[in-house]
């Protein structure tokens, strides 16, 4: 908004009338004895303050400050580990800073983007933008409908003007000029002896479009946040999952999303293939990832195949499924002390480095007899011995080995509290004395004390999928495009006015004055348009140019003339016009753009 942003008291006439004298510097409004009716005065003061607060909130400056605050408030989100992004890091932070962590948690610094103070900033920003854009939209709509103002008395003071004599009567001259201008798409305001014509209303249409689209954009983002959701799922080759909360590893629903709202598709990962560059300086870099999946839109529907790749998501029912990660899941079979197979499945290991894809994971065997068993291990896709230390030299599984540390005792799983499947709670486990030996596929560890046997039977690959549903995405895109188109339109189109006045000359004949005014931007190009218009009008009148008058000059000249014209011709009776012609007009349009 470009209008008054000063507190009442130092503000416009209207403000002073609405709220007598509360000035922010002077503190609260004057006391009761100053007024005949205390309550009425108080009410006025309160409305005054509210009005002032509203103006402050909806000012461009406040919007910019809020935007800046939003940026600053996001900083802790990248400095302090975030619960939603990396809960393990948050857990580590708790361990490393036991005194500080609870304070940070209380300040919501572990979930910055869900923090009340963060919400406060963006809600205020939203209100500020809406409060700025809405009234402006109405005003623009009004000004787009408005007729051009009456022609000023002295057209020669306009930035561009021309004058000539004709033998037509004043009424005829004005009438024919009006017809000509109307034929060129000018909007007319016609009266006795003058015509005012204006063109370039598309500029306001563009401006209007921009503002409406900006609001729609804000709304779309809101819709996405309320009705959308994000989820992650790690899927081992051969596994299936359905888009339902119990099957998702992580589920971040929008405010109004319930489990029943999830699109009921299912995905099966048939095969995951990673290709790596095998030579040169980029050796070991991935060259492609292909996840061959089958999916069904809904239960019972026929399955369809899809090759899921990075940046090539699967789109089901408006939901996008992205391939975001991969790794190895070594397969283990554990036989307990009683000879029962108590575990036989792939266990996803998480890569801890990318060059060799060395991965870590744990195996929990809670139903082994006599003791629960736990294993913490490292999977090396291509194991090589470097100075007595085993390392992975290449991300593909050329020489897969697993190295494990074995534990027995109580995993802490039976007492209730949830555990991560990627961590062992060592509190009640004892380390078993097993000589560390890397296992090749097919090899086993025989645990001491008849605790059982673990066999590394092979490995599979897993892919991690990100599932995102954002119903606001398409509306946001459309709004964004419209906003930019509107902005371009408002920049490209000039509003310009042409005035024609005719009066009978004292020595007979008619004097026709033509004046031109480009309403916005530097008037580049309008001079030529005006000159040809004036020539055309003059030609239609059979006019002749009196000596000493010519189309007026330079941009500098125009500026000062314009200012003087404003004083002289009383443009103040047309506030919408003032608003439009205000030099800040373009600035504010840009400002909104930034504010977005």
């Amino acid at each position, binding site marked *: 908004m470009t209008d008054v942003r000063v507190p009442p008291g130092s503000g416009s006439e209207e403000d002073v009338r609405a709220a007598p004298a509360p000035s922010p510097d002077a503190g609260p409004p004057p006391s009761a004895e100053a007024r005949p009716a205390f309550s009425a005065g108080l009410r006025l003061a309160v409305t005054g303050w509210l009005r002032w607060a509203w103006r402050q909130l909806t000012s461009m400056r406040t919007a910019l400050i809020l935007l800046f605050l939003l940026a600053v408030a996001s900083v802790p989100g990248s400095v302090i580990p975030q619960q939603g992004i990396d809960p*393990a890091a948050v857990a580590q932070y708790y361990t490393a800073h036991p005194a500080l962590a609870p304070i940070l948690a209380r300040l919501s610094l572990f979930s910055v983007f869900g923090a009340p103070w963060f919400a406060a900033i963006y809600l205020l920003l939203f209100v500020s933008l809406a409060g700025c854009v809405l009234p402006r939209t109405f005003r623009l709509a009004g000004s787009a409908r408005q007729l051009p103002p009456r022609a000023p008395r002295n057209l020669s003071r306009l930035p561009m003007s021309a004058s000539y004599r004709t033998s037509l009567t004043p009424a005829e001259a004005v009438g024919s000029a009006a017809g000509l201008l109307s034929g060129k798409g000018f909007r007319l305001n016609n009266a006795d002896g003058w015509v005012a014509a204006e063109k370039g209303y598309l500029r306001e249409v563009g401006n209007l479009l921009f503002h409406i689209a900006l609001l729609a954009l804000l709304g779309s983002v809101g819709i996405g946040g309320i009705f959308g959701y994000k989820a992650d799922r790690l899927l081992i080759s051969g596994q299936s999952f359905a888009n339902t909360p*119990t099957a*998702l590893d992580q589920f971040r629903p929008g405010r109004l999303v319930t489990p029943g709202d999830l699109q009921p598709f299912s995905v099966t990962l048939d095969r995951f293939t990673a290709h790596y560059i095998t030579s040169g300086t980029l050796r070991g870099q991935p060259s492609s990832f292909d996840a061959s999946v089958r999916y069904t839109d809904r239960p019972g529907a026929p399955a369809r195949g899809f090759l899921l790749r990075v940046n090539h998501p699967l789109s089901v029912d408006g939901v996008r499924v992205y391939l975001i990660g991969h790794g190895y899941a070594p397969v283990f*079979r554990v036989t*307990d002390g009683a000879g029962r197979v108590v*575990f*036989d499945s792939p266990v996803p290991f998480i890569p801890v480095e990318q060059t060799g894809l060395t991965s870590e994971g744990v195996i929990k065997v809670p139903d082994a007899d006599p003791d629960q068993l736990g294993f913490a291990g490292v999977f090396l896709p291509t194991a090589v011995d470097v100075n007595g230390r085993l390392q992975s030299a290449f991300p593909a599984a050329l020489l897969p080995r697993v190295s494990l540390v074995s534990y027995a005792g109580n995993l802490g799983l039976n007492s209730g509290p*949830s555990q991560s499947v990627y961590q062992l709670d060592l509190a009640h486990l004892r380390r078993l004395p097993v000589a560390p030996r890397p296992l090749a596929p097919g090899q086993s560890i025989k645990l001491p004390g008849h605790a059982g046997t673990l066999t590394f039977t092979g490995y599979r690959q897993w892919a991690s999928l990100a599932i995102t549903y954002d119903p606001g995405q398409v509306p946001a895109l459309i709004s964004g495009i419209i906003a930019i188109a509107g902005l371009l339109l408002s920049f490209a189109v000039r509003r310009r006015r042409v005035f024609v006045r005719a009066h009978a000359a004292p020595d007979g004949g008619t004097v026709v004055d033509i004046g031109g005014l480009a309403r916005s931007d530097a008037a580049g190009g309008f001079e030529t348009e005006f000159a040809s218009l004036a020539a055309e009008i003059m030609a239609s009148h059979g006019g002749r140019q009196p000596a000493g008058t010519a189309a007026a000059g330079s941009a500098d000249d125009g500026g000062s003339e314009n200012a003087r014209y404003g004083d002289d011709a009383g443009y103040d009776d047309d506030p919408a016009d003032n608003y439009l012609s205000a030099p800040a007009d373009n600035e504010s349009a840009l400002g909104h753009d930034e504010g977005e």
Partner: protein
Amino acid sequence: MFRLPRFPRLAAHAARARLACSLRQPNGAAGAALSAVIALALAGCAGGAIAQDTAASNGTSFVAGSYDTTVYARGSRPVAPDVKGTTLGGRRLSLGSYRGDVVVLNFWGSWCAPCRAEAPTLEALARHFRSGGVRFIGVDIQDSPAAAEAFEHTFLISYPSLNDPSDEIALAFRSTVPPAAIPTTLVMDRSGRIAARVVGQATYATLGRLIASVAAGAS
């Protein structure tokens, strides 16, 4: 142009796999410190939106709250879908064939700590209500057959469990009472309508009362 993908945050993403919704009583300082996530977790475990991504799930702490129980009045009980499947023992089983009995359907996994904690309770309740026409059925989620069978062996589970490796059974309940977390326990009346849902670890007293009232035909 294909950009070589890197997955720096992968560990973080994957590290949250398979986390159950755990509900425990508050414990002083931890409860206070985690107040920020409690609201979230309660919303999650309270059957509306789910928030499995809470402190509860990272293995170091757990979220305070109460067991979440939803009871449906007689007139507003949703009809349970007729799910069919294969049990861990390899038998075909259809929920529809249990019409006339009260059915307690428990979604579980051998890897899920609250499921392990509530398993003895469920088995005791199954034995207690057996003569009253109450049948227990488990639905094993995201599990492997060997681990699931070992679980049943450990806890001497006498009732059958459907194997649900591709989440078809959980999905079948989506338009009625979707299981919001693991474990979730549904109680269905004799006409095959869902009378109650317990999200999180069930207690003997709460679940027992629910089963008794549904079996007695009360609303």
